[in-house]
């Protein structure tokens, strides 16, 4: 676990409500409201997507929603910046290949 529970300057990490997310079909634990990227990193996941042409892996790069390196398919919607999107209970998160696929209609988007 690489969660920073105790810190010299900051207060102890507050125990947030735990929720379940499904990442590539596998159930993982996350804290309610934390960013998807933080939850994945805390679960030891560093690869978030693979590029279209060279299929090379990408992960967290800017951490503030600027670079789109961390995009994944979330609840069927591709290209979601996981570093600035909070987790929700039952969220379905998938590693994105290339530009992803829109599953129109299913999610009402």
């Amino acid at each position: 676990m690489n969660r920073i529970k105790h810190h010299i300057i900051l207060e102890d990490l507050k125990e947030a409500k735990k929720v379940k997310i499904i990442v590539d079909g596998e159930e993982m634990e996350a804290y309610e409201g934390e960013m998807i990227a933080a939850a994945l990193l805390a679960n030891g996941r560093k690869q978030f997507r693979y590029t279209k042409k060279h299929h090379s892996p990408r992960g967290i790069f800017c951490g503030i929603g600027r670079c789109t390196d961390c995009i994944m398919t979330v609840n069927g919607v591709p290209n979601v910046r996981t570093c600035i999107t909070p987790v929700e209970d039952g969220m379905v998160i998938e590693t994105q290949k290339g530009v992803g696929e829109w599953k129109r209609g299913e999610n009402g988007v």
Partner: protein
Amino acid sequence: MYKTSIAVIGGGPAGLSAAIEAAKAGAQVVLIDENSRPGGQLFKQIHKFFGSKEHKAGVRGIDIGKQLLKEAQELGIEVWLNTEVCGIEQNKLLWAVKNKTESVQLLSERIVLATGAMENSIHFPGWTLPGVMGAGAAQTFINIHRVAPGKKVLMIGSGNVGVIVSYQLLQAGCEVTAIVEASPRLGGYGVHTAKVCRAGVPFYTSHTILRALGENKVEGAVIGRLNDKWEFIPGTEKVFEVDTICIATGLTPLAELAWIAGCKFKYIPELGGFVPLHDENMETTIQGIYVAGDITGIEEASSAMEEGRLAGINAAASLGFYSSKQKEKLCNEVRERLDALRQGPFGKMRRIKKQELITSRREIRCHQQQIV
């Protein structure tokens, strides 16, 4: 369509300060930020600030952030979170997307752009591997999200962000294996550099990163020495076993909205690249559009707050909320504090370059007047 007197875009130290000053004057303000929480980069700055008492020296960025939020709340400033501003039309009509789904329009009489900056990258074989990230990204994860990006970190760049984040990585329990600096001299403030030195982190000056190692994620890094022409000297390679490589090689102003609005720019490398021209009141070449903070040149949170105040006071005054005498008094106080911040070798260069921006703005105005 919504309407307001002053719209402030960006809820970092600059935007918050602008909104607070404008609201204090009595103007109706809407503050917009794309994040779920205001504060911009302030809440990840857990180090103590420099300057004098008026600059809140000795107070940590995170606590300054809390104070600003409290003030904004007490003034009843309307804050739109999760709202990304995507366009500015003529006559100051803003187009934004709320909660990634809802399109909204906001017509405002004055606009303050305080959108901040993004980190620069350098490119080397393996720079796209998971595990290579901006130093600010690592800072965001350890101090805000409270998850360590890795166990062993190599820091590229010894400027302020490089040394501050290195120290904060140590505080978070990570190991900082080394700090690599291409220049023969270290680049950060002495106080922060000394702290990292005392913690035993080795510095490699006149060195650069040659490549990141690993297939699917970072497993190591190779660095090498540079000669006085900044060329790599073969045979000087050193290999580090690290799982994270942080890049701290400067920031670039995030000025898309100013471009869209049609503001005039100038390229000033010392300020981070293309920056929108502004006058001594932070007004751009477009009447009624103001800028403040990193968007007008990379500095730090203390100066971003002062610039924000200037923008807020002037936007409010231009709508009649202050007499010109009141306005001048308030602005002069802020300008004095800004000058005091822009001291020392770093600050002086910034003061000169900021003056260059203001002078260029003035020249354009003279030119426009001649045409009229």
